[in-house]
């Protein structure tokens, strides 16, 4: 079960789970659309983008929180987490509107 990859810090474990699960979910939705047809295309887009968006935001959080990463050395992890929460709020607002 390739979602469960143990990479040291439990946060990474969770984040990897989230990323991989949601990318899998996106692929499933695309396959479903190919079968059924793209009738409510806006719903399809919002479903796919919600999965992709949360996966991307999880990856960003993981990058910014990782202590071995030299680019974000001065960034406090709380700030990274606050960014993560804010971006997710915006993403879900847009998703809910576009779901139709």
């Amino acid at each position, binding site marked *: 079960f390739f979602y469960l990859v143990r990479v040291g810090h439990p946060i990474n474990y*969770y984040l990897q789970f989230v990323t991989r699960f949601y990318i899998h979910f996106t692929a499933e939705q695309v396959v479903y659309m190919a079968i059924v047809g793209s009738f*409510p295309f806006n*719903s399809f887009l919002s*479903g*796919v983008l*919600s999965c992709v968006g*949360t996966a991307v935001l999880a990856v960003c959080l993981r990058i910014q929180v990782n202590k071995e990463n030299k680019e974000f050395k001065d960034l406090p992890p709380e700030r990274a*987490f606050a960014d993560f929460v804010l971006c997710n709020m915006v993403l*879900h607002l847009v998703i809910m509107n576009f779901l139709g």
Partner: protein
Amino acid sequence: MCLEFGGALDVRAVLEFVDSGRDLVIAADGSASDLIRDIATECGVDFDEDSEAVVIDHTSYAVLDGEGDHSLIASDEFIQSDVILGSKKIEAPVLFKGIGHTLNAANSLVLKVLSASPSAYSTNPETELSSPPSLTGAAISLVSVVQARNNARILISGSLDLFSNRFFRWGVQKAGSLEKDSWKILVSDYRHAKSGNEQFVTELSKWVFHEKGHLKAVNVRHHKVGEVTEPAMYRIKDDLEYSVEIYEWTGNSWEPYVSNDVQVQFYMMSPYVLKNLSTDQKGMYSTSFKVPDVYGVFQFKVEYHRLGYTSLSLSKQIPVRPFRHNEYDRFITTAFPYYGASFSTMAGFFIFTFVYLYSK
């Protein structure tokens, strides 16, 4: 041969008369001029080219024939139509003496009202036959009618005597009917006291002059079920009702026309909906159906062409629009996986924040 009737009346004037929607009766016999033959040809009927030819029938002639050359024939091959010939069956055969004509088989506007029996042929009785005659059998039409596309009606008869008082009064005995029906006991079967000419001609002239079989369609209406006004545009999957009133002229008044085979089409390049209209026996025809799932500009078309009746071609245009943004179902069934995915990402995010904040 005369080329005009006198004054300004010629082939073109007669044809313009018909084109303007008025009716015409043409009766010709052996002495018909080329002018009359031309008019008949323009109407779709071809008289025999030989101007001396008459129709002769050696098995269906009338026994009262004075000349003995069997050119006075008695025919009962009528067209099967209550509209043209009346609902009362014509019992006696019709006496006919004159020339025959043929109709072009490809012409759908011409009808044979009285045709000759299969043993008839058209030839000059004075001369000997040197080759088989060109017009034979049931292809010879003795009386035919044409209903033009503008509903003008033309009667073409190959005999002037058909309309004469003499033929009206004479009784008819068909030769050969004795042998044919000799196993029958009834005498009245083969000796008729009065020919069928009068009834035939009366009913036919009523039809030609539009006293029978003339329809009009009025009051075409359509509206959404439950409303009364006609909308300017329909939406797909609407329920709508269509109604039309059809009347028939009886010679002195408009009576409701009753039939169960009038159909309406909802047409755009091809009929998407084809439905029979149901009648309330008083001339009102109506039906209701659902607008198909296609948008565009449609027409309500009623095309009614029946033997002996005027043709009805009604059409009314109406556009059909797709759903507006807020007219779709609130929750679309096929989109549930997408709803599920979006909400699950939100739930995942929510749970994840708890996990992130409260795990060591």
